């Protein structure tokens, strides 16, 4: 974990400059500016309805699927703007994977769930798919549990396994960034700790942004923490500083449970 004494060595992966975001007339996010570093875990915390999930979804434009939205300002991945024609949303979503709040495996076999992404991009060769599926399941620490029942339906798995399957599915297309929207909120403590271990392993090669309601989780897994309130960024810093010496009074009140 990054500490205040060691300087940041990783480049900026995602950069947000003066971003505002609205559904119709309703402004959800406003005046956001922050940087997210590669191969670090950035946690986003804040009370319900503060816009943190919405913010997460901006990074892969998944909100566009269901709602007409307006985004202003700059959102960059590796210096390329993701809204102003630098990259289309299909390529973006392959590079920026997402894990949702509720495990949402497809009603298909375990194997087909993981193979779904590679198949979209034209990989149909059995040998290649086998390798990709095994690799993704190993990365998601699920291989040993499911290697003998790859043909079985994913709906027969436990909630924690389903969520790790969803992570494997996201990993199978080789993303650079993984967005996680409260990935443990539907899981028991044991399943949660498995996901947290996984996050620590995955950040070796991925940029991870995680929205969480769980302060301990943010403290355990993240390098940076951003605190959102009413659609604005109150404070972002190294997780260690946020949880020990926050600059803003509001941040302190929130993480100590005085409001929220």
């Amino acid at each position: 974990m990054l500490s205040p004494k060691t300087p940041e060595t990783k480049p900026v992966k995602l950069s947000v400059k003066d971003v505002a975001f609205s559904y119709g007339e309703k402004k959800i996010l406003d005046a956001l500016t922050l940087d997210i570093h590669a191969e670090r875990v950035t946690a986003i915390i804040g009370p319900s309805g503060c816009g943190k999930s919405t913010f997460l979804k901006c990074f892969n434009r998944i909100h566009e699927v269901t709602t007409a939205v307006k985004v202003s300002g700059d959102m960059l991945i590796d210096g390329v703007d993701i809204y102003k024609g630098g990259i289309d949303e299909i390529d973006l979503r392959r590079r920026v994977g997402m894990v949702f709040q509720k495990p949402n495996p497809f009603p298909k076999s375990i194997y087909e769930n993981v193979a779904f992404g590679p198949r979209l991009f034209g990989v149909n060769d059995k040998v290649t798919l086998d390798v990709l599926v095994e690799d993704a399941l190993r990365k998601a620490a699920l291989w040993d549990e499911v290697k003998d029942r790859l043909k079985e339906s994913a709906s027969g798995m436990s909630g924690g396994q389903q969520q790790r399957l969803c992570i494997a599915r996201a990993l199978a297309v080789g993303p650079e960034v993984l967005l996680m929207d409260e990935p443990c909120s539907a899981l028991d403590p044991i399943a949660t700790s498995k996901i947290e271990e996984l996050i620590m392993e995955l950040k070796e090669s991925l940029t991870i942004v995680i929205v969480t309601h769980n302060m301990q989780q943010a403290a355990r897994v993240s390098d940076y923490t951003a605190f959102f309130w009413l659609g604005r960024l109150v404070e972002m810093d190294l997780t260690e500083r946020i949880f020990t010496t926050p600059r803003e009074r509001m941040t302190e009140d929130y993480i100590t449970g005085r409001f929220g």
Partner: protein
Amino acid sequence: MRAIATLRSPSRAKHVDKLMRGVLWVIALGFILVLAVFVGAILHQGWPVLRLDFLTRMPETLEAGGGIKPQIFNSIYLVLLSLGFSLPIGLGAGVYMAEYAGKGRTLNFFRLCIETLAATPSIVLALFGMIVFVQTLGWSFSIRSGALTLALLNIPVITRVTEVSLMGVPRELKEASYGLGATKLQTILKVALPYAATGILTGLVLTAGRAFGESAILVFTAGTNTSAIFPDFRLTVPGETLSVHLWYVTSDGTLPDAREIAAGTAAVMILVLLILNLSVRFLDRAIRRRTR
């Protein structure tokens, strides 16, 4: 003083609950009874006629002892042909309405059109089909006139069933697909349609059942005669179906055994519909096991 006398006591609510359960049970039982008597009567009357040669002989026009072989063939042939026309159109329209049309006035207008078409009495479609296909295009009473008019009956139902089934696909699944970089078409083909398949299939079979039993449309477009050749796959020959035959023999009255033939035909139709509905249950369960 009893200030809140109108409040019901919990025990009374429980009694009402029990009573209602009983009432609903009796209604259900009564309905099943009516159905059983109805089907039983048809099968009972038809049973003596249901011999193999009744199913495999050509019909007679003046003497007793005719069969319904060509009518069985025509019924199945017309249903399949009409589904062949209406399935691509209905499926396409349903996918458009559920996934592409967006919300708003245009969609509501489309939906109104479809619902009106679905509610159009079949005799209206029958006369429309007769004017357009039989007379204007000069196709006379033929399989093609019948199949196309029957397709008009099917299209709105298939469209609506497809739309409703697609609406029932959980948003989470679509998000998962888009989140992996799938395009809209990929998401529809690989996630939404497979999930909606059981619903669409059920609707399709109900549509087939309705088309199978339809008479008004076919009296005016496919005619009340059959080809002398069997099996005759030509689209230009007239094609009397089972339900049309049922109506024709009882109303025309040249056959001495019209009553028996009608009873046998009705029994065959009921049995076919029963088998159709049972096979759908079976198929539905098989698909559900594989996709959910």
